[in-house]
């Protein structure tokens, strides 16, 4: 597949790893922001191919994981409404709220449907005039253009029975929260490739200046990630702190103009509470007032529900990169994808889910390294 296969080439990967090994003269801690990047790293075993001195910690780039418990409980309350068809992406179905998840509600008769695109939800609304269709708008900036379009079109076409429960979160405030934490160890970032494809990376320049950390906007395939790591390590070794773009084939500094236009038409920046992290000011989107008729939070009066987080779950620490999934005592035992305690295990992009899917709960107990054919690959982790 073009623009995928070349970025999975083992010879190129090998050269990059050698180059990283040559370049790194001391230990560095890097964070990849996006859940899709975490997934790719674990799936290809990248973190175990690079020199041991480079540590990758996983960031809060899983929008499902960071959706606040209150918001999840609100979603469940709305979904339980008999006249509602509740639609969302597949991930959200199994995210645990205070009491159960959407899948449980579905098995008890709630009309909960998985859609691939928010436009599908608008179509469901057109097809079911007697019901109200709510779409759970969870995501980072990457998904904002799609969500904005659905609300914009619904209003334009007079689809009155469509509304969105918005839970958009923004990456730069999340990165700032990571960097501001007293126990932060992250020295450089692999920036979120698809978020930046949409909104560009100008905003990351001020983060760079403020915190003096290199940020390399990186793609998702193994070669992208390795190149991003190399570029970040080069900056760190040279004492530089700039925004660079590794994902040049898809990302421009100013982002996608038409997408940014429509996002600003439909959404405005607002404060948001992040699960596991707490409230972060100006860290999310909400619908503008002119779209209030399509704002599920305004349409459905949901009384504040007393929320109950699992005491065992350390999702919060994992989302800040302060712990790894394998550090959690519940990982793979009490907490599995089948019975998740927290969001990082439920979402396909959560670090815990990625670790679990690719057997990391086993690999601490197995010999995880099949002997590499070429020893000069650079030392790899056990």
């Amino acid at each position: 597949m073009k623009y995928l296969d070349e970025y999975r080439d083992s010879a190129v990967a090998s050269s990059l790893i050698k180059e990283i090994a040559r370049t790194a003269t001391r230990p560095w801690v890097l964070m990849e922001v996006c859940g899709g990047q975490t997934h790719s790293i674990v799936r290809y075993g990248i973190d175990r191919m690079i020199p041991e001195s480079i540590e990758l910690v996983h960031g809060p780039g899983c929008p499902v994981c960071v959706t606040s418990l209150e918001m999840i409980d609100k979603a469940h309350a709305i979904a339980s409404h008999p006249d509602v068809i509740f639609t969302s992406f597949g991930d959200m179905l199994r995210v645990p709220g205070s009491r159960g998840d959407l899948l449980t509600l579905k098995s008890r008769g709630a009309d909960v449907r998985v859609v691939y695109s928010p436009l599908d939800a608008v179509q469901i609304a057109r097809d079911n005039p007697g019901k109200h269709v709510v779409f759970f708008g969870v995501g980072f900036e990457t998904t904002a253009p799609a969500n904005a379009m659905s609300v914009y079109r619904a209003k334009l076409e007079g689809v009155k029975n469509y509304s969105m429960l918005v839970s958009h979160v923004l990456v730069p405030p999340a990165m700032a929260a990571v960097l501001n934490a007293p126990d932060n160890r992250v020295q450089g970032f692999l920036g979120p490739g698809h978020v930046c494809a949409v909104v560009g990376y100008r905003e990351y320049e001020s983060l760079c200046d403020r915190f003096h950390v290199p940020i390399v906007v990186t793609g998702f395939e193994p070669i992208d990630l390795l190149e991003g790591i190399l570029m970040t390590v080069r900056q760190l070794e040279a004492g530089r702190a700039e925004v660079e773009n590794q994902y040049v084939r898809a990302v421009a500094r100013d982002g996608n103009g038409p997408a940014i236009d429509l996002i600003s038409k439909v959404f405005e920046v607002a404060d948001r509470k992040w699960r596991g992290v707490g409230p972060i000011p100006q860290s999310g989107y909400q619908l503008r007032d002119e779209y209030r008729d399509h704002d599920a939070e305004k349409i459905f009066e949901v009384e504040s529900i007393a929320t109950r987080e699992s005491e065992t779950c350390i999702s919060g620490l994992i989302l800040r990169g302060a712990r790894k999934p394998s550090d959690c005592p519940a990982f793979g035992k009490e907490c599995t994808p089948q019975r998740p305690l927290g969001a990082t295990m439920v979402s396909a992009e959560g670090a815990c889910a990625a670790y679990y899917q690719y057997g990391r709960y086993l690999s601490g107990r197995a010999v995880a390294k099949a002997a590499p054919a070429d020893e000069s690959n650079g030392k790899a982790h056990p």
Partner: protein
Amino acid sequence: MCLGIPGEIIAARDENGLRVGSVRFAGITRQVCLQYVPEAAVGDFVVVHVGFAISKIDREEAERSYRILEDLGQTSELTDDQRARIKPS
């Protein structure tokens, strides 16, 4: 959910003022909203996320940056001796 996959636009049309098209990913074709990539034409590659093209792949940039990676492969085949000389101290 956050999957952004590159695919080739094989057809495009206007549907109620919205630009949509067929995008092919290795033999699978899906309908994709092309409203956000007005500059992308049939034959171009786009990154698709939840049914929307969010970016047009810049072929030249892709080729240029990939060539740099391939060149890296040439230099990394240095002898230990040569490598030692290049590496600082």
